[in-house]
């Protein structure tokens, strides 16, 4: 495999967490402009996959290779599943968005007025203009989610990792949010963990099914039979003229 084609490659990677194998013998690659939906059952290892790519969890076996320009840590943006930040902490929206540039600042971390301008521009793009100096406990869940998306993209990453972004998105912003992701996808590859295939199916270009093993499905269409074959026991919602949910047939 020529690493130049890919942003990163996982080569028979196995990962353990608390002495249990979470990911086993995984081959996976992410190319430029990819928009991959990472699906699979709870506890199947979706978040672990993101953490391995981020370098937070060690690899037990196998190799992860990055394209040279990916080795700068700022080249990966990350939107965590749970908001680990303390909403009562005294930071402003601008502060949080700027924190996405922390690594570029090395250890001594002054922010320039240009950094601040860039943060304000991104805050505006995300529809949060006027809230630059608000503290986080004044925001709704959906607004908070956008602030954290701003933090993930301010460093102009080449790869954006999203962990269940739908959890906090309110329905009024849902279309905007995924539309924004589609925009971002023109500049960066996106890897999005989600359990809600119904919504993401109109945005992602391909799927990775993670359930200890990883199966890559290179098309945007995926069927129940394929999911079954991949060992991915999840519910699939289809689109049609009448909105409806398809449940597994009775035997």
């Amino acid at each position, binding site marked *: 495999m020529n690493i130049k084609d890919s942003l990163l490659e996982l080569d028979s990677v196995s990962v353990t967490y608390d002495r249990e194998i979470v990911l086993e013998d995984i081959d996976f690659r992410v190319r430029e402009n990819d928009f991959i939906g990472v699906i699979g059952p709870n506890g199947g290892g979706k978040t672990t996959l993101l*953490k391995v790519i*981020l*370098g*937070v969890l060690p690899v037990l076996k196998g190799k992860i290779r990055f394209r040279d320009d990916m080795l700068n*840590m*700022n080249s990966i943006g*990350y939107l*965590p599943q749970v908001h*680990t*930040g*303390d909403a009562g*902490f*005294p*930071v*402003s929206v601008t*502060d*949080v968005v*700027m*924190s996405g540039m*922390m*690594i570029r*600042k090395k*250890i*001594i*971390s*002054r*922010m320039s007025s240009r950094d601040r301008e860039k943060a304000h521009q991104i805050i505006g793009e995300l529809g949060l203009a006027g809230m630059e100096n608000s*503290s986080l406990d004044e925001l709704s869940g959906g607004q908070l989610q956008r602030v954290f998306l701003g*933090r993930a993209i301010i460093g102009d990453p080449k790869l954006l990792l999203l962990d269940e972004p739908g959890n906090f998105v309110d329905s009024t912003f849902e279309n905007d949010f995924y539309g924004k992701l589609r925009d971002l996808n023109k500049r960066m590859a996106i890897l999005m963990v989600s359990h809600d295939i119904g919504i993401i199916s109109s945005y992602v270009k391909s799927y990775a099914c993670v359930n200890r093993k990883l199966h890559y499905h290179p098309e945007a269409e995926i069927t129940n039979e394929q999911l079954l074959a991949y060992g991915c026991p999840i519910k699939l919602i289809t689109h049609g003229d009448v909105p409806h949910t398809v449940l597994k047939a009775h035997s």
Partner: protein
Amino acid sequence: MQADLLQYDFIVKGFLGALFASITAGIAGTYIVTRKMVFLSGGITHASFGGIGIGYFAGMNPVAGAALFGILSAFGIEYLSMNHKIREDSAIGILWAFGMATGIIFIYLTPGYAPNLMSYLFGSILTVTDADVAALGIMSLVLIVYFAAFYRTILYISFDESFARTYSPLVNAFKYVTTALVALTIVLNIRMAGVVLVLSLFTIPPNIAMLFTRVYSRIIVWSVISGFAGTAAGYIISYYAGIPVGATIIFTLVIIWLTARMISRLSGSLRRKAHLIKKSNLPIN
């Protein structure tokens, strides 16, 4: 003449002590309060009493013993809870009592009378030496430089440690250095307010500041100012009323905090009212 000089020395030492205590406690206190580490800091404080006892027994400087104990217990708690070996609050509770017990046993075993025991428990400006004041002065300088140089880093790690970890492998190193500085700051302030009371020097001023601002750097500045006001006022009151200085300082700080709360409540409701009036004056079309 002699008495004047003594009084002059007493006032200067008191003033500088109060100033340096307010600076160190204001900076470290903002870190402790915003990171919700108050209980952890209480554990460090009381564990360091073990070091004071051992210092006495071994005939060395008790503050050095306390510093060693304080820093080691801080690292111990961080390490144990980070590796999920024990629940953090349990670890703190155990260390808290263990430190006190160790201190009491070694002071008891020390031959002769331990004259400054009460001053370590409740603080006394009278027993504060020039060296204590100088140490606090140096600590003030160290904290100012450290927090100014690493302001953003400290802010972001405090706000969202697990996210910071995805960006930088230095998060743990930073946490340990900052925790060590905080532990050292607490120990140096024990001379001022005592093991039992010192923590309120760290917790009350940031809580006063946070009633009026949500900007981290301003919380630090207002913590130092309100801390100094409370410490200086308490110092003067205790001198004229002839009551223990540590307790008087804490009492004064709590009064300031309660007053500030009332003011911020009042101004908050006034502002809301003004806002409502403005809204209702808008033309309806």
